[in-house]
């Protein structure tokens, strides 16, 4: 139990570092999803299944998906709009 927890804590630290050091946003999304899974496992060993479930659905699925959609949209062919399209 202690060994597993130590391992997961270190993995969480490594995962966070990986998210930060992956400078390309597209690859960072996958680091984030992996980090979300690690955190969820860590929360499970910390006896917090409710939080682990929430972290899986949010941190490992919903947020990375939103990031991917944004990046896809930002890559789409789109001429920059008028500098100031104010109402």
């Amino acid at each position, binding site marked *: 139990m202690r060994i597993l927890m130590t391992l997961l804590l270190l993995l969480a630290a490594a995962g966070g570092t990986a998210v930060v050091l992956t400078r390309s946003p597209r690859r960072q999304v996958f680091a984030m999803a992996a980090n979300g899974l690690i955190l969820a496992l860590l929360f499970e060993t910390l006896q917090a299944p409710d939080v682990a479930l929430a972290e899986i659905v949010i941190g490992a699925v919903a947020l990375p998906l939103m990031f991917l959609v944004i990046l896809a949209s930002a890559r789409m062919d789109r001429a920059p709009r008028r*500098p*100031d*399209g*104010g*109402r």
Partner: protein
Amino acid sequence: MMWLSVLPPLPVVGPLVIAGLLLMTSHGLPRPIPDIIALATTALTCSLCLLLMHHTAHQPLVYWFGGWVPRHGFPIGIGFVITPIGALLAAFIGLLFFATLVFAWGYYDEVHAHFHVLMLLFMSGMIGFCFTHDLFNMFVWFELMSVAGFALTGYQLRTSALEGAVNFTVTNAVGSYLFLAGIALIYSRIGALDFGALERGVAAQPHDVVIISAFVLLTTALLIKAAQVPFQAWLSDAHAVAPSPVSVIFSGAMVSIGIYGIAKLAWSVFAPSAEIRHVIRVLLLAMGAFSTVIGGVMALLQRHLKRLLAFSTISHVGFLLIGVALWERRALAGVFVYFIGHGLVKGALFMVAGILLALCGSIDEIELRGRGRGIWPAGVAMAAGGLLLAGLPVGLMSGGTDFIAAGANALGQGWLLWVVILGAGCTGGAVLRSSGRVFLGLGPVAGEERHSPTEEDKEKPDRPLWLMLVPTTALLVLSLVGTRFGSDVISPGTLRFMHPDNAMILDGARAIPAAALALRAPPSSYTAWVSVALALAITVFSLFRHRLPRRASRYFQPLRPMLTTLHALHSGDVRQYVMWMAVGLAAFALAFAVS
């Protein structure tokens, strides 16, 4: 009184429910309905808070959600403890939202009722923040307020508004995570979240490093919200570009409420720790003094009117922080008076900026020169606001200043008066200079301000001038006539604020009767006239610099590098702001290490 015990949650959850229902039905509502509903809600909220203030004068009102009264003195649920000060500030917030919604009547009818929904949620968050007696609950309202603010900043979808919103969101999000970390630290040590229980925990181990660290993190988060040096730079980005009705709320209430949070935590939770009291007196005082001066000087250097007002907010809120950091009764009473006075005046000034945006189609002082002649009543309002910012000895702002000055003098910190004179003189001078240039067409030659960033901007000119002038004037008039509060509500309220009655709140003991000790308003000191004179001198100098011999401006040449540095500090680069947060945290660590 049975009916009284139902009231405490209503000013918070009432607007929440209305906002939810408004969103639900927004697709079917004809145009003026959301406006009317939102106005009625804010008016009702304001009157409820006034009622609460009236009935808590003798004894705070304690309300446990879900009926979870403390067990053997240990709180098990979340409590609202309504004190006269909290209720007064909540009523002020309700009033400011009411005035702002009048000001923005019909302006935001494009996207259904979304503007009204966001504004009502914003107000709920602020009032909950004033009432709560639980650290995590405080965080929830803090965050509701922040999220509403983030969304409202980018509301108009203009490019620079989006950039300002990003800076605002990123810095304040980091702030809220620091707040959470602070909650986690203090929870690991004391195992409670209620202010009263936490205070007992702090009293049991006042020298504990964990508790001190928690204080640092919580205070840093609130200082970020209150935009104090070195966490100030996001404010000028966000307030300058937010829609003007939103800026009214931001500068009038949201920023200063961060200071209220600091005062609340300091007196209700951390007061027993001598180390913390010491650092408040030294470091927070220094931060407040720096903010007052830097905000004032930066305001003087701006040409973008809303950015100018944003910097003046940093300056005046810095003065509020000084009042808290003095750790003295009169100074604290002065903070609450000044809080309201500043909110009213600054709100009115942002409304004038909104009028210019709508009717003159620009926000740039130099471009607007002389174009405000046709709407001279707005100019009168702006000049009056400038004089009040400068410290004209009438009304709430100067009343608050007198209290804080009396506190500073009693502690032998008279030098602070010069800081205040400098800050108030600069901000007042900046506003007076702008009103002279815009409404009288003076000042053909621009000074240092021509180097500052600006942009084209305008808002929809679809409201008559009188509709916008009515709330503006009302706020200014209120700031003049509200001085009665000084003795009636604020002085007994301040004593309650400084000595939270935990025996009553947690153990159900009888309330300590309110002390008959009333604070007499100190006589207005000479400082008021000095700062008004400084403001007028600055105004005359900058508006008539073309009449001066050339040599006169050469004396200021050596200041150029300093001003460039100041501009660079507010570059708009959010990464730099995050860096300053680390520096600020390090300053706290250093202060505790040496004390």
